[in-house]
């Protein structure tokens, strides 16, 4: 459990927005991680690294509120997020391993369903991930990289304070990874937090690294 040096390492709990306090997780009688703590201020990025099975995806699910930690708590501005999971859910976007797309719906329809849940406009989100020419194709015919881009386009739909990204660049070509850079930078510039699990380098300057 080593934390790399970020430019804000001195940030105290007081100015932190997202904080993990003594998180531990047990999966099938085996402790995946224990006593995990970190604190992130506005605009921060945290990259989770570690071997397969180290608990990166599990930690993201705990931060999203989809899993309950065995011990510890996830705090948002000092308040336990498990006290009001619905409010926590509304402030975050979670990109899992799966792209959560319906093959039978078109690219635009897949996105407009989430736009009707969260608000936001479909066209700019498609443009941000260079998917506009594919808008009317069924998601079934997309390549795996294009599907990933469509899942990433969901992030751009409507602003949310916390992005939890599980291997966001899997299957993406170099140009698409580059396109993700300004999207992540704009989110952080607006005060948003990014927590990403990855094996590949991400366009996240000054990101802190947490090795699980």
């Amino acid at each position, binding site marked *: 459990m080593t934390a790399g040096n970020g430019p804000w390492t001195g940030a105290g709990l007081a100015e932190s927005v997202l904080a993990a306090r003594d998180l531990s997780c047990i999966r099938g009688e085996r402790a995946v991680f224990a006593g995990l703590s970190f604190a992130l201020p506005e605009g921060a990025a945290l990259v989770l690294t570690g071997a397969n099975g180290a608990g990166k995806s599990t930690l993201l699910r705990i931060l999203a*509120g989809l899993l309950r930690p065995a011990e510890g708590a996830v705090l948002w501005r000092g308040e336990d997020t498990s006290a009001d999971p619905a409010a926590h859910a509304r402030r975050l976007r979670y990109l899992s391993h799966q792209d959560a797309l319906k093959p039978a719906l078109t690219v635009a*329809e897949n996105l407009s369903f989430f736009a*009707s849940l969260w608000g936001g406009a479909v066209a700019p989100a498609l443009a941000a991930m260079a998917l506009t020419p594919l808008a009317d194709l069924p998601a079934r015919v997309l390549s795996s990289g294009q599907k990933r881009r469509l899942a990433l386009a969901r992030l751009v739909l409507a602003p949310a304070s916390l992005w939890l990204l599980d291997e966001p660049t899997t299957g993406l070509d170099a140009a698409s990874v580059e396109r993700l850079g300004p999207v992540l930078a704009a989110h952080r510039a607006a005060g948003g937090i990014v927590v990403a699990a990855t094996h590949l380098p991400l366009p996240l300057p000054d990101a802190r690294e947490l090795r699980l």
Partner: protein
Amino acid sequence: MSGFLALVAREVRLALRHPADTLGAVLFFVLVAALFPFGVGPAPETLARLAPGALFAAALLAALLPLDRLFGADAEDGTLDQLLLSGLPRGGIAAAKALGHWITTGLPLLAATPVAAALLNLPVEAWGAALAALALATALLSLLGTVGAALTLGARRGSVLLPLLVLPLAIPAVIFGAAAIEAAASGLSPAPFLLLLGAGVSLAAPLAPLAAGAALASE
């Protein structure tokens, strides 16, 4: 509310793009109804005597068919995680799923009911009561089935477990539904039985989505 409607609209749109599930349930319903004349012989009185119960058993079994994919498909492709984080209450997600199931399975079964009723030699004057009773019974099954689908989500052999959980709960619907049809066939008013079925639906409509939502939460 707009999220709820968006989810229902998405269920309907997906069913229209993949009509195989709906068509499969409807054909299953008609085929099971068609098996009875072969089994009991073509004597019209025997068949008409069996018709109400056979119609109900066939319709409820057919409505069960698409239930194990109700949450399963969304859980496999990651959509369920997104729905749980959508800000919609879990009970609302379950209610939208139940309504979606009724629109995409219950309504098509109602449309096929005249065909099945004719195959079973049900007297024409009882068809109205049969439609009303089946409309209520399939709605009840959609609600109970949503609870079963949420409970068996992720369980091994969930598709076997699901009917075992749901069908016993549907027994009152079969009793009152068949009684309504029999009453109409013999010239009596089916209203008391339909009202009892309606009471079952009104009881399940608020409670079943809450139970299903709680089952999703503990997944």
